[in-house]
């Protein structure tokens, strides 16, 4: 895999040295706005049911899903969607949540149909009310807005989806 490389000599066992001088603080991009559940709790796959399909534009559709596990989301978070073929082949993609936060049992994913998109094309062309879909999430703890501080939303195309969740959250909160 790699070119041969002259390794540095193995390190000698040295006696413990006095305390290190104070190190400069490591940089940070910003405060942690949303930490995962304590103990690294895992979000499991769950079987959601399609309760509504709304055609927004020729290329964009909203899929309203009932998720029995009901993990509430923060605006800006996304879900994973997994499709499985009878021969064992599977494909997963991440899609932003468009709906305002609730109890997590009813969420809306808005998906753009890509011409060569194996998952988005299937969702647009095949998925009907009553169908079941494997989903996992919500995930993401950076591009999120909890509603506590002012925000300016700028986006285009399918990039408006997480912004819609923020806008709806703002409206719902009055």
């Amino acid at each position: 895999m790699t070119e041969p490389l002259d390794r540095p000599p193995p390190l000698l066992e040295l006696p413990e040295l006095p305390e290190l001088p104070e190190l400069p603080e490591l940089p940070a991009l910003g405060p942690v706005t949303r930490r995962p559940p304590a103990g690294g709790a895992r979000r499991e796959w769950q079987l959601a049911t399609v309760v509504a399909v709304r055609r927004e534009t020729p290329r964009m559709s909203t899929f309203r899903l009932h998720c029995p596990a009901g993990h509430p989301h923060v605006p800006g978070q996304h879900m994973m969607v997994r499709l499985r073929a009878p021969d064992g082949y599977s494909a997963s993609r991440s899609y932003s949540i468009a709906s305002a936060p609730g109890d997590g049992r009813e969420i809306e994913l808005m998906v753009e149909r890509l011409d060569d998109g194996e998952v988005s094309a299937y969702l647009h062309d095949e998925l009907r009310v009553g169908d079941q879909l494997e989903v996992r999430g919500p995930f993401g703890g950076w591009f999120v807005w909890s509603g506590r501080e002012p925000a300016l939303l700028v986006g285009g195309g399918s990039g408006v989806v997480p912004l819609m969740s923020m806008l709806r959250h703002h409206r719902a909160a009055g």
Partner: protein
Amino acid sequence: MANPFRRPGSRPAQRDPRLPPGQYDTGSSFPVLTAEVTPRLSTNSWTFRVDGLVEAPRTWTWAELLELPRSRFDGDIHCVTTWSRLGTSFRGVSVDELLGAVSVRPAATHVVAWSHSGYTTNLPLADVTGGKAWVVWEHEGKPLPVEHGGPARLLVPHLYFWKSAKWVGGLRVLDHDEPGFWETRGYHDRGDPWLEQRYSGD
């Protein structure tokens, strides 16, 4: 009821054995995903520092970095967002070379890689030693573009690519694990693509 999902005709029945589970081959494209604003770094003022649990903390300038023995990685990279780029190459200096120059103390167990942008990511020492990690400034024979972390980024190709910090500014050697930017925001602490360690608890 929907028709069952089928393997698209464009996807070969024989899955490329280089693809970890849940990944797809992005071909020759190299997607760009960043949490922060792309910093414009001049190689005139660029530095790379190794400090923490080392005998002799050290800062390299760009010119000094280029004088170090170079090595090349040929292989595959895997992003947690499910794309993989197969059969690519990078060139730079092995992290073994950089750590060898500062003499890591025996108590060291982990490193935090940090970027000039403010990004951080944590790695066990064992994942950046033994010819597994590099600081690279060339991709497929060309200077590493700024959107991919130029002038230089960390390369840890056996883990998901968020561990390969763009615009890397240094490594801090520690005697404990210190979760970085994504690791404190729901992503897995280690990120092995072959174990699908995408999210916390996977």
